[in-house]
């Protein structure tokens, strides 16, 4: 019998009287045994307490939605007195509408002269409040400002997103891969780029360990003509190889290039590459490609203390994870890349329609 099984039997009071006596006397005489047992019971009780707390949290959420779920949502848009006075209220009440609708309301309110500038201040304020909606810390909020700028230029039809980042196509069927930290806890996730109008996606699966999420475009019309030019390369890429990425740290797609600096990432994590591309907030979720246009990874993040050091999760691990989580039901493009031998500018032109700006609400 393994020690852990013995521990479990003891804790669950499954030992008979004689075994119990033996066990307890061993606890007294054998220090190493006692230490292992204490660790074991510490872990198990931490686990049980945790599960109990989770249960209570879920219960409270359930009570709330049952008792107050139909109540109007209130969003405090303001703490600046002057603005408050002009509106005459500190809160805006939108009858139980989605956040996006409320944000649009603000955009509409903001088309007149004076309010324009003020509104942009408020929008960045809102971002903070929205932070409270459990969006992961450290996620990226660059887009807010641009949203506000667009309002000033009077061309915004959409509310600014709470978080923005990048994503790219997995296959021709409308599946898209991105970083989980961006969309965690989100109400809705949209994607867009220069060829695809903003479209709502569905979150299909998530892998917290690799920080991956797979989204799907449900609109079949939209993906009818999809022909993903790149392919996923599961083989490890060599250190020193030239690599590049495309992403949306800003409204327009941004190209970044560098080389593969290490076969492991932060803390020697072997699911990641280290790359010498300066990645910015918003790059998260973008593809990492080699010279031939094979996808070798997905941009994960950067390290705080070092400039121009990025990390990307390896294609190998992405594919493994997707196969595992989807039970092999999602095929990842692995045919030959049609980008081989092309000039970089031409490669980018062809990849462009399949890399997206992700907008998270």
């Amino acid at each position: 019998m393994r020690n852990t099984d013995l521990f479990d039997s003891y804790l669950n009071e499954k030992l008979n009287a004689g075994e119990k006596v033996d066990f307890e006397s061993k606890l007294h005489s054998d220090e190493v045994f006692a230490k292992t047992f204490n660790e074991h019971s510490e872990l198990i009780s931490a686990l049980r307490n945790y599960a109990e707390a989770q249960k209570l949290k879920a219960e409270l959420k359930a009570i709330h939605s049952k008792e107050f779920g139909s109540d109007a949502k209130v969003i405090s848009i303001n703490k600046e007195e002057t603005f408050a006075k002009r509106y005459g209220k500190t809160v805006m009440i939108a009858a139980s509408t989605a956040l996006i609708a409320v944000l649009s309301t603000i955009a509409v309110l903001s088309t007149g002269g004076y309010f324009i500038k003020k509104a942009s201040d408020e929008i960045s304020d809102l971002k903070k409040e929205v932070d409270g909606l459990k969006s992961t810390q450290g996620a990226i909020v660059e887009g807010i400002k641009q949203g506000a700028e667009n309002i000033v230029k009077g061309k915004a039809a959409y509310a600014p997103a709470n978080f923005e980042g990048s994503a790219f196509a997995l296959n021709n069927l409308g599946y898209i891969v991105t970083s989980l930290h961006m969309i965690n806890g989100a109400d809705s996730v949209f994607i867009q780029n220069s060829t695809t109008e903003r479209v709502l996606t569905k979150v299909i699966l998530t892998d917290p360990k690799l920080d991956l999420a797979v989204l799907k475009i449900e609109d079949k019309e939209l993906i009818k003509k999809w022909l993903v030019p790149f392919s996923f390369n599961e083989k490890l890429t060599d250190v020193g190889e030239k690599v590049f990425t495309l992403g949306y740290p800003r409204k327009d797609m941004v190209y970044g290039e560098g080389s593969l600096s290490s076969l492991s990432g932060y803390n020697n994590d072997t699911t990641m590459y280290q790359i010498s591309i300066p990645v910015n907030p918003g790059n998260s979720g973008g593809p990492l490609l080699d010279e031939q246009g094979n996808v070798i990874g997905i941009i994960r993040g950067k390290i705080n203390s070092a400039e121009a050091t990025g990390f990307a999760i390896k294609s190998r691990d992405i594919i493994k994870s997707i196969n595992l989580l989807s039970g092999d039901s999602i095929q990842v493009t692995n045919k030959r890349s049609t980008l081989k031998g092309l000039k970089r500018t031409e490669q980018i032109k062809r990849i462009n329609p399949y890399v997206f700006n992700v907008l998270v609400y």
Partner: protein
Amino acid sequence: MSKPNLQLTDSQFIHGLRIGNSEVLTALYKKYYNLVLKLVVNNSGSSDAAQDIYQETIIVLFENVQKPQFELNCQLQTYIYSVAKRLWLKQLKKNGHVFLIKEDGEGEIADVTEDLSLHQQKEKDFEKVNQSLENLGEPCAALIKDFYVNKLSMDEIAEKFGYTNSDNAKNQKYKCLQRLKRYFFDNRLVEQSEIEK
């Protein structure tokens, strides 16, 4: 909002929470929600933020009434208001706001410092378990939870996870648990959160 509110005294609420009575929990939740909603919304928060703060407040109360020596030194309403206020101030600070909460005549404030620090310690412990389970991945995390929390038998686990027999399931559980132990007792986990996303 169908059923009429249960009319309970403070000590009946406390007792109900102690024994985990869900009707009492619901009645308590309904009774003080508006108090906290008002507090948060009047101080730059949304109703969603109020919901989060209120639920955390109830959890703080719940955790503290589990202590045998817990004693309510003020009205339950004052306790809840005080905890919620402290939690909301903390949240505001975290979001980079530096201003004081407008008082709205809710009156006295109870000293809940100790109760909050117990909660903080618990949250820290939970975060450690949570991180370890996340690192463990699936199906390991589910298997461990099914065995230790949901108390499924090895036969049930073998069937649920598709192992050929309970010995195989036991082996798998053993491997998962060993890994979980490594993550849980490994302090380097903390450093990992340094990666900026």
